[in-house]
């Protein structure tokens, strides 16, 4: 049968993507990453991640993970921990990552200057260097990394982690000039003469000021300079009581740093109500664990000071922050006030661009200091000068900066190729398969999300060491199992389907329907493969682990046994989900040749058809040892029973052609693969050896 042909047709169908991929600003195929992790292909997972995002190490730590927010498992229990899985991949492939580092060959004569070595600028540098251009990055500070390298507190993002990504990019041949501020050490017009294109990616490195009485007092600090000084190991003294003005993620960073710098009482004051707080929920939760007080719905009225030194702050009740149009227009009740005692007040109310780099240049600036910039072409008012990242888009996350860097690289490449501007939407929206329908949600088994424990808040605030550890391999694999494998389910070939209704009758999720031919909607299918295993017309193929995979694996692996002729040759189909490490995942013909056991790891052995179970015998195997999950553990309802029935059918076939059905064993994993599988193979091997001896005795 032509499964290959069916696969081509399946791959050509118009795709709707998994929501995690669509939600990611750089469209990381996190679903495929999880599949690689499950199959033990950590290097492939890293390649996939780095192709989408050169700041993979960083994003494994601090990404705001829109992939998880859109994960379809959320409706069943909790989203898959995709950010932590990404971190796991990075940590599991460190040596490989160093080996894959290599300079790219310069194939283009044009050179590009990038101003600012943050995630946006360096991503563009990465892409343009890979496209063969000469790229030089100018960084005003002593280190590359932008906010990631100099501002985000180390307990969230250690600098070595940022460095992993930066070193990858620099290894491509990107030139980095640190301590070189454009507009001060070298002017933009000078760069324009030297380089064919310029990209301004200076970010938002300045904190906004607040206009209330007493704001000039000693002890009023700005958030970003404080965070930078903290990262540099040179923080100013803050005193016992610190008030942070602001409710965003920067305010949280400041508050948590303040605790680590010795402040006993830290209060975050913000206009927004508790529900409206703009910081990420998990950041707020962690801040509360560290005994940070929240004072929502308050606005600063005046800073209180004695002899020019801060003593506290008077607050007024904020009634609402936004008007009917959603614009920022806070209203206050001046009659309701309160006072907080403080040694230090830190302002974290917003960020602004540092426009030093535009000194002496013709690049136009709008009112309010923003760059005059076209959001689609990314061009500034000067030909050949482009902008990307927060300086043009406004405040955003690291992964959004990376996405904008990719977009800028495409815009510049087009400009250098054709002299034309490329129009690109700020965000590419792809079609998704949407939420998991309610009727399917009910049928999907719940599986608790793997959470790594954090040290208690009181312990954490003692220093700046990282508060979160990465997954162990077993944890990563357990979490990866929870992925619903969206979009990899059954595909019906209508030309073959005879409308027999078998899929409708077998589907444990009640997904399949038949009118004239079967329909298995992607948004409902759970990719268990039970239908494909029994479709009498072989009209159903699976995207993940399709029918051809088993044949291909058998052909490859059993070639190893041809040379060595082990006394007994067993093919063992094993449940991929039971492997808590990579121990049994890598299988080679040589290993099969020496051990006589060929492991084929299957994402649920419930998908094995009778023909799959028989196939090893065609290739010369003496026995088949199927190892399913532990009893009651199958992800898919009825999977265990269906497999049991198919194993019986395969045994019957063997018996009918005069072979013993005992050549096929069905095992249930005990504890884990590592604990029990070797014993199962040994039992099967001994039994088969005995059968072989008896047979030879009879014929002899």
């Amino acid at each position, binding site marked *: *049968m032509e499964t290959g042909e069916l696969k081509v047709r399946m791959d050509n169908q118009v795709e709707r993507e998994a929501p995690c991929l669509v939600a990611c600003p750089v469209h990381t195929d996190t679903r495929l990453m999880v599949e690689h992790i499950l199959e033990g292909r950590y290097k492939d997972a890293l390649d996939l991640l780095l192709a989408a995002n050169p700041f993979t190490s960083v994003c494994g730590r601090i990404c705001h993970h829109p992939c998880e927010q859109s994960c379809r498992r959320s409706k069943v229990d909790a989203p898959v921990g995709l950010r932590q899985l990404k971190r796991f991949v990075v940590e599991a492939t460190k040596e490989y990552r160093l080996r894959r580092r290599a300079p790219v060959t310069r194939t283009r004569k044009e050179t590009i200057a990038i101003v600012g070595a943050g995630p946006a600028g360096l991503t563009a540098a990465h892409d343009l260097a890979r496209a063969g251009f000469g790229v030089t990055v100018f960084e005003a500070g002593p280190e590359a990394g932008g906010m990631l390298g100099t501002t985000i507190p180390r307990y969230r993002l250690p600098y070595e982690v940022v460095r992993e990504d930066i070193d990858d990019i620099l290894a491509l041949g990107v030139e980095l000039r640190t301590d070189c501020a454009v507009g001060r050490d070298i002017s933009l017009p000078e760069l324009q003469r030297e380089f064919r294109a310029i990209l301004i990616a200076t970010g938002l490195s300045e904190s906004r000021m607040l206009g209330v009485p007493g704001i000039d007092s000693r002890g009023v600090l700005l958030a970003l300079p404080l965070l930078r000084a903290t990262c540099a190991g040179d923080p100013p003294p803050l005193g016992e009581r610190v008030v942070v003005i602001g409710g965003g993620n920067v305010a949280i960073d400041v508050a948590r740093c303040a605790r680590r710098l010795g402040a006993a009482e830290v209060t975050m004051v913000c206009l927004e109500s508790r529900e409206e707080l703009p910081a990420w929920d998990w950041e707020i939760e962690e801040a509360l664990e560290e005994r940070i007080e929240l004072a929502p719905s308050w606005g600063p009225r005046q800073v209180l000071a004695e002899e020019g030194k801060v003593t506290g702050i008077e607050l007024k009740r904020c009634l609402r922050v936004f008007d009917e149009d959603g614009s920022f227009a806070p209203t206050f009740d001046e009659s309701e006030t309160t006072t907080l005692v403080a040694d230090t007040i830190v302002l974290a109310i917003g960020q602004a661009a540092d426009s030093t780099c535009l000194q002496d240049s013709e690049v136009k600036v709008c009112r309010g200091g923003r760059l005059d910039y076209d959001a689609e072409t990314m061009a500034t008012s000067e030909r050949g000068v482009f902008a990307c990242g927060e300086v043009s888009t406004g405040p955003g996350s690291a992964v959004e900066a990376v996405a904008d860097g990719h977009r800028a690289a495409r815009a510049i490449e087009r400009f250098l190729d054709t002299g034309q501007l490329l129009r690109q939407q700020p965000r590419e929206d792809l079609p998704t398969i949407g939420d998991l329908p309610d009727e399917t949600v009910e049928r999907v088994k719940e599986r608790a999300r793997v959470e790594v424990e954090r040290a208690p808040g009181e312990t954490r605030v003692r220093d700046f060491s990282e508060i979160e550890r990465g997954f162990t391999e077993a944890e990563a694999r357990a979490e990866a199992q929870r992925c619903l494998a969206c979009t990899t389910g059954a595909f019906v070939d209508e030309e073959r389907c005879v409308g027999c209704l078998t899929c409708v009758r077998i589907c444990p999720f009640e997904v399949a329907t038949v009118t004239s031919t079967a329909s298995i909607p992607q948004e409902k299918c759970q990719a268990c493969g039970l239908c494909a295993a029994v479709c009498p017309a072989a009209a159903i193929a699976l995207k993940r682990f399709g029918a051809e995979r088993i044949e291909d694996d058998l052909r490859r692996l059993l070639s190893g046994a041809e040379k060595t002729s082990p006394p007994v040759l067993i093919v063992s189909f094993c449940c991929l989900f039971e492997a808590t490490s990579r121990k049994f995942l890598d299988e080679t013909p040589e290993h099969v040749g020496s051990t006589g056991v060929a492991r084929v790891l299957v994402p649920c052995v419930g998908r094995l*058809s009778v023909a799959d179970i*028989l196939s090893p015998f065609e290739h010369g195997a003496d026995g088949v040892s199927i190892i399913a999950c532990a009893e009651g553990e199958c992800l898919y309802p009825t999977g265990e029973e269906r497999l049991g029935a198919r194993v019986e059918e395969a045994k019957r076939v*063997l018996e009918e052609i005069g072979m013993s059905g005992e050549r096929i064993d069905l095992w249930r994993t005990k504890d884990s693969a590592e604990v029990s599988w070797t014993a199962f193979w040994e039992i099967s091997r001994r039994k088969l050896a005995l059968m072989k001896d008896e047979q030879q005795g009879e014929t002899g």
Partner: protein
Amino acid sequence: MIVAERKPLDEIKGFVEGFGRVLVVGCGGCATVCLAGGETEVKIVGSALRIAARGEGRHQEVLEDCVTRQCEPEFVEAVLQRVDTDRVDAVLSLACGVGVNFLAERLGSVPVFPGLNTKFLGATAEPGVWVEMCAGCGNCVLHLTGGICPVARCSKSILNGPCGGSNNGKCEISPDVDCGWELIIERMKKLGTLERLVEITPPRDWSSSPHGGPRRVVREDLRQLAAESEEKSVTST
């Protein structure tokens, strides 16, 4: 549909074991729907034959194919061609008996063997269970019996039942077999037409059934026109 089931594989193996190159052909019609002879069953039978040959040290090549329906000249043409081009020594048909006959008439000197036992005309009672509902007797009497067939569903095919072997709704031949006449009576009670059974159905003419010899059905309006058939015979010679 026509319901069939796979013959025991040792029997099938016996048919073809003397042939070097065997083509197993499935049927995408009824045989697929009743899970006896579609693509997937072809794979299983093909696999079993290869495993057996390997185990017994015989050299035998087993090829696999499946056509839309083995009872149509246009569809079986591909099989005939493959038998020629691949120099097939024997064909194993996983269609109902019709497919086997149809191929046998067209395969010249290459033998065709049945891989299935053709059982009956039936329906799916529940997933994986098929039951006989029609005997193909050629002269339907279902209007007399509330839509339940006395020919197919009464073990004796009697037209004025039940007989004395009916016991609590079951037939005397087996407690697993419903008494067809009990089903008819219950059905006609529901329809309010039970009194019709008072009338004796006279002995029928069974010449329309298989006992009357091989049957055929002709639709004159769809038959090949004389000119067409002449033209075809010219092009084929």
